[in-house]
């Protein structure tokens, strides 16, 4: 079933690329949405419980290297899989519009399918192939369909994104070879530990993708120049490839990962504070959201670096919540950019409550979810991260608690800049503009779907946290059991 969940969107995506002249944009997006919906349903049905590997597929691939086509959903990857398929589906729904290029839908499907492949892989080389597969399509998405007012800038942003990521993934490849040499296997189920060099290289590779400060410089440009669906996929799915990678490598490498964990925590906390400060300086809404992503990923990195069960729960929850919340934020800022031709908050003007009420309400909802209002999804990710830091995990107590203090400060700063954004856009004296239009049907559908899912996760966090009850032995050997104290 997992194989079908990957191949269906992948095949449809390839088909749309080659037959792009034969279909209209609307039909292509509809077809894409249908295939992602099928994929989502299949992935939901595949679940067999948190103590096993669900829907495991394991066949021969490259025998001399010990690489196998090994797929399956674990307690860690399943939430990521569902979130990715869901976001992919919403991206296709978003594209159901007259002026959509069928090729763009094809690329979105290929990117989603490759990301699903990353989360579903239980073989390190296969993981890596999927990890790389999504990159070039994303380059085209940013460079060809990005910001229509800045064609040189979007290509520059796309190339910088690609080169940063590829540098990271090349180091990752070396790390994988090192791990495979030490363990004699590429299977997640069999890898146990690796040398310190491997941990450094692998963490560096994923840190570029996550991104952790100071390897984040590709992110603001790429997110702000990408088209709406590109920004959504980058924020909701691509960054998760990094955090997911960190989560599983923390389990696979346990001992040597613990040696680099303090640096991960440090980079995460610096990211939280630094990105919050950077957000104050932003006028471009998409850049603001992009910087806020760095902060959220900082919380996730902090959680992972504790290597404790609650840290894993926090990291998975934080990643999924960030995918939904930031996805919604990018969809809505895309709506604004479509209407006003720019994402500059000054140019869009104040008083959206009066001018485009539903759009404004959805935006404010997403913003307060992002700043961590209790009862919404964003809250639990941050709270669990702080709790993980409080419980210290593998970190030193003074270090972890310093990080905790700084992260709490970051929560306050985050609140402040989102409130600023809400004040600049939603509130104030309305100055009507010609382009004021409220949400169209497709935009409403996407927004409602995301709002509902954010509420559900916010009100019932047990849906994800329950997967990591303390004492349970989840997933394959190594990932999670190894870090259970």
């Amino acid at each position: 079933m997992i194989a079908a969940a990957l191949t269906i969107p992948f095949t449809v995506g390839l088909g749309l690329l080659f037959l792009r002249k034969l279909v209209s944009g609307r039909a292509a997006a509809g077809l894409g949405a249908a295939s992602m919906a099928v994929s989502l349903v299949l992935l939901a049905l595949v679940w067999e419980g948190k103590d096993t590997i669900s829907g495991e597929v394991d066949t021969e691939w490259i025998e001399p290297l010990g690489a196998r086509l090994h797929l399956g959903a674990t307690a860690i990857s399943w939430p990521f899989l569902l979130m990715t398929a869901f976001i992919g589906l919403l991206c296709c729904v978003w594209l159901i519009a007259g002026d959509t290029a069928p090729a763009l839908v094809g690329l979105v499907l290929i990117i989603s399918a490759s990301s699903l492949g990353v989360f579903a892989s239980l073989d390190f080389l296969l993981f890596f192939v999927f990890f790389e597969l999504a990159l070039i399509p994303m380059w085209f998405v940013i460079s060809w369909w990005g910001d229509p007012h800045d064609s040189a800038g979007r290509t520059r942003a796309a190339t910088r994104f690609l080169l940063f990521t590829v540098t990271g993934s090349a180091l990752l490849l070396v790390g994988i070879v090192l791990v495979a040499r030490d363990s004699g296997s590429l299977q997640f189920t069999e890898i146990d530990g690796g040398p310190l060099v491997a941990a450094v290289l692998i963490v560096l590779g994923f840190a570029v993708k996550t991104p952790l400060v100071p390897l984040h410089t590709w992110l603001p440009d790429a997110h702000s120049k990408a088209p709406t669906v590109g920004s959504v996929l980058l924020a909701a799915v691509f960054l998760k490839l990094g955090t997911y990678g960190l989560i599983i490598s923390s389990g696979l490498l346990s001992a040597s990962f613990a040696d680099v964990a303090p640096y991960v925590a440090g980079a995460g906390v610096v990211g939280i504070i630094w990105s919050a400060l950077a957000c104050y300086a932003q006028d471009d809404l998409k850049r603001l959201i992009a910087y806020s992503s760095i902060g959220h990923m900082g919380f996730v990195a902090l959680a992972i670096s504790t290597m404790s069960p609650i840290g894993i729960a926090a990291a998975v929850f934080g990643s999924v919540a960030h995918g939904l919340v930031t996805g919604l934020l990018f969809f809505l800022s895309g709506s604004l950019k479509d209407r006003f031709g720019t994402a500059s908050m000054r140019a869009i003007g104040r008083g959206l409550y009066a001018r485009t009420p539903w759009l404004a309400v959805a935006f404010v909802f997403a913003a307060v979810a992002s700043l961590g209002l209790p009862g919404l999804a964003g809250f639990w990710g941050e709270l669990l991260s702080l709790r993980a830091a409080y419980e210290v995990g593998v970190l030193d107590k003074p270090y972890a608690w310093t990080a905790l203090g700084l992260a709490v400060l970051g929560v306050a700063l985050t609140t402040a800049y989102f409130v600023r954004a809400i004040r600049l856009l939603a509130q104030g004296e309305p100055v009507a503009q010609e382009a004021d239009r409220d949400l169209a049907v497709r935009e409403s559908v996407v927004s409602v779907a995301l709002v509902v899912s954010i509420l559900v996760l916010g009100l019932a966090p047990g849906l994800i946290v329950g997967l990591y009850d303390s004492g349970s032995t989840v997933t394959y050997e190594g990932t999670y059991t190894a870090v259970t104290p």
Partner: protein
Amino acid sequence: MNIPVDWSVVGPAVIVALGALVALLVDAFYSRRTWLGSGLPASIALVWAGIELFRLHDDIVPFTFALSLVILVGTLVVVVASNVMNFENAMPPGEYHFLLLAAAGGALMMVAARDLVTLIVALELLSLPSIALVGLRQGDQRAIKSAWTFFLASVVSTAITLMGVSLLYGVAGTLTYDGLNAGLSSTDLPDGVVAVAVILTIIGLLFKLGAVPFHVWIPDTYTGAPVMVAGFLSSVSKAASLGAVYTLLVVALPAAFDTWTTILAVVAAVTMTVGNLGALRQTNAISMLAWSSIAQAGFLIAPVAVVTRFGPKAAVQYLAVYVLANLVAFAALAVVLRLRGSTDYSELKGLARTDPPTGVPLVMAALTLAGFPPAVIGLVTKYVVIRPVIEAGETWLAVVMAVNVMLGLAYYLKFVVVLVDRPAIDDPYRSPSPPVSIRISKAAVLIGTAGLVALSAWPDLLLAHLP
């Protein structure tokens, strides 16, 4: 003097040499002088040599067998794709095939050589026809200039190698590999002399591989030579030198391991970096491939520099994929050059859309060389080639390789983007009806691409069987 010749081992080389002679004779006595007239016997000779090679499979070292196979298949692709030059008055088909097969014979001898005189003779047998091939196009000043560059660089490096060989002879008193191995193992030899001798000897081979600092001739020669000759030099010639370097070092000079392993590791690192940096600036497909072939040479040397149980396998597997991808690229560019007169990026813009049978193979070849999915085989061979380096504990070299993968992607991607971009003109030029000979070349391109696609889907096809 009695020189023992093991005919069973040189069989394929002799058949190829015979083919060369037949091709020349057919051309001399067959008045129409078409490309097929001499190309056909050349192809038959190559296939026959291949059959002979398989017959001898059990007598030959697997490493040598695999390299010979790569050389034969590579030359065959070059011969078939060279049909694109049919009816080009400046290119004499008989001489072309004669020289090409003579060089291929030299390449086969080089990987089979087990003594230094054979190696030098084979090296010359590969080099001299190659030089003539580069300058073969009549009345082409550029080609003649390139041939001169090639000639001078070649002669100098061979001379240096000969100095090394004579020093080795002076030290060990023998020229056979086994004798050298025994002679150098005795302890009372001056280390310095042995080190100098070894370094001088491998210089000639590094030159052929195009390793830094002996790479300067490559861009000049490749861009001036007929495209398929450049393809031959970048694939078959490299395969031969790689085989010769490896055999020489491992069979004859293991005693001097400490000397050459460090040097080669540094050479590998510098070569891939310089090649990639050079390629970044190119805006012509052939110059880009020329510089990229320097970088790829670095990736080929890396597993050889560190002798581990995976080393020779890794080098050959990487080489096989590189040769196939490179030949597909050169053959497709040869077609483009014939039909459009230029391989500048401005001319190639949108080729994958306007002319998929040549554009899509170029995309696939570039992605394979870059080691990027969907060309999974490129990625897998990158993994394969990094593995022995890690195995030997040279993590720094592996990291340099990783950084170079990124550098490589930068320009391969630029090339891919040019190919799939929206075409500059709405109604691009199409050849009214391409002559049969060009269709044959295109067929070679498509078969090569099919090979790359098949290998990407089932990497086992290559990795489990070669060598």
